[in-house]
């Protein structure tokens, strides 16, 4: 019997080790698996390399993971947003490493990693500082730069619906990096809004086939990052006990 459901976000992230590489889905808050990220904060694994398009906002989710000192290196395309408080400070003080990657190259490196392709050539970044030190090759008169595929020990992603085989659908532009990260990670952990019975998902409409998924956690009412930021919530909540509580933060998580 195949049943990829696990009891909780906490048990899902339990095997993440110090020094692991972790891909985290999301473009801004759309698709950010915030309950899984908070479970990783509780878990405490350190010295992580994290791959995400951004670096989070406010003091929750990915930004909180970074603020908690668990991330040694970020691989991303756009490490600042309107509400990014944490990363800029750590970066300027030399406490976190940054590998800046053009967004499409980041996506293709992840896709390639998941597809068993160790490297590829792209025109993107040729002649710019981001191509410095990388192999150049000329194909049919144009220069291309070699980029390496990216793999990860874990991927944390968010989906809309899942069945117990791990077949996934997503909600609108919350899909973004999740399907390719699911392919590129050895262990893909998915928080899903709704678990459905086998056969409910039309095979024609499955976006991520279950073979790329290792663990499923139903989170029926996920927190919205922008709302938490607006409400001044921090994670872990002990930093500001007057305005939030652990129960409030994790109220959306329902063990399957």
């Amino acid at each position, binding site marked *: 019997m195949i049943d990829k459901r696990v009891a909780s976000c906490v048990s899902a992230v339990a095997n993440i080790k110090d020094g692991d590489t972790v891909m985290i889905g999301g*473009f*801004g*808050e*759309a*698709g950010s698996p915030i309950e899984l990220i908070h479970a990783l904060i509780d878990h405490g694994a350190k010295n992580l390399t994290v791959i995400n*398009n951004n670096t989070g906002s406010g003091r929750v989710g990915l930004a909180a993971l970074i603020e908690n000192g668990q991330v040694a290196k970020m691989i991303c*395309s*756009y*490490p*600042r*947003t*309107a509400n990014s408080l944490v*990363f*800029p400070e750590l*970066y*300027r003080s030399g406490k976190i490493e*940054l590998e*800046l*990657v*053009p*967004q*499409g*190259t*980041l*996506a*293709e490196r*992840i*896709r390639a990693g998941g597809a068993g392709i160790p490297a590829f050539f*792209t*025109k*993107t*970044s*040729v*002649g*710019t*500082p*981001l191509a410095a030190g990388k192999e150049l090759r000329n194909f049919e008169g144009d220069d291309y730069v070699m980029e390496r595929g990216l793999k990860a020990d874990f991927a944390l992603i968010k989906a809309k619906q899942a069945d117990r085989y791990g077949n996934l659908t*997503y*909600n*609108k*532009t*919350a*899909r*973004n*990096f*999740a*399907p*390719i990260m699911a392919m590129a990670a050895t262990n893909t952990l998915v928080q899903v809004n709704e678990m459905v019975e086998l056969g409910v998902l039309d095979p024609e409409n499955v*976006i991520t086939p279950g073979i790329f998924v290792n663990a499923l956690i139903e989170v029926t009412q996920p927190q*919205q990052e*922008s709302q938490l930021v607006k409400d001044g919530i921090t994670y872990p909540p002990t930093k500001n006990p007057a305005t939030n509580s652990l129960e409030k933060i994790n109220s959306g998580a329902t063990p399957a």
Partner: protein
Amino acid sequence: MSQVAKKQNLAATTKIGWNREQMAQRCAQDIEDGSYVNLGIGIPEKVAQYVPDGREVIYHTENGLLGMGNSPSDEEFDADLINAGKKAVTAIPGASYFHHGDSFAMIRGNHIDVCVLGAMQVSMKGDLANWSTGAVDAIPAVGGAMDLVAGVKTIYIITQHTTKTGAAKILPECTFPLTGQKVVNRIYSDLCVIDVTENGLVLIELAPDISFDYVQEHTGVALLNGLSKKSNIADNQLVNTTYKAQQ
């Protein structure tokens, strides 16, 4: 230069030419029916408002949507439906969602027809600098700009002709770190429209009451005069008439 002349010159650089809306509107005239278009953040976003009636254009946003619509009403709002600038948007009937790998295959694979971006600097060869000033204490952030200029068929730039302090942004070589080499096709500034060609930069159209010599004074490289090759006066009238009609 006398003090009076200096003051007049300052007034001229701040008040004449096309405003932001008109620059977007002028660019929109060149978006053809049936195009797949990606619009950058800022003035480029405004281009969508001014594409002439009767042209069907599909907007791509690199975070996974083809067929991006307007801002949502309160009922339509969904935090999971945003554009590359992380603003809430809608999806038009006939839209499609896809993951980042596919989205950038559309870009890198030359499937998107037009991308409109802003610029810090453009060189005479069409090099673009628009992501970093190279300042040591800045947090470097590139997003999808390098992918867009490398892969989209036609790159239009909308930019003020000079910096706020009056320095030329159109230069022999960019001094800021590049976004891409030889990627820009056309520049829409507050003063004029310039094509990037094998022979150099060709001024093809002037904003109302702007002279070729005035543009040349505010440009870091010698411009070729291409005004006679195009019925620019008629275009100018069209642009300004339409603009006024919409106000």
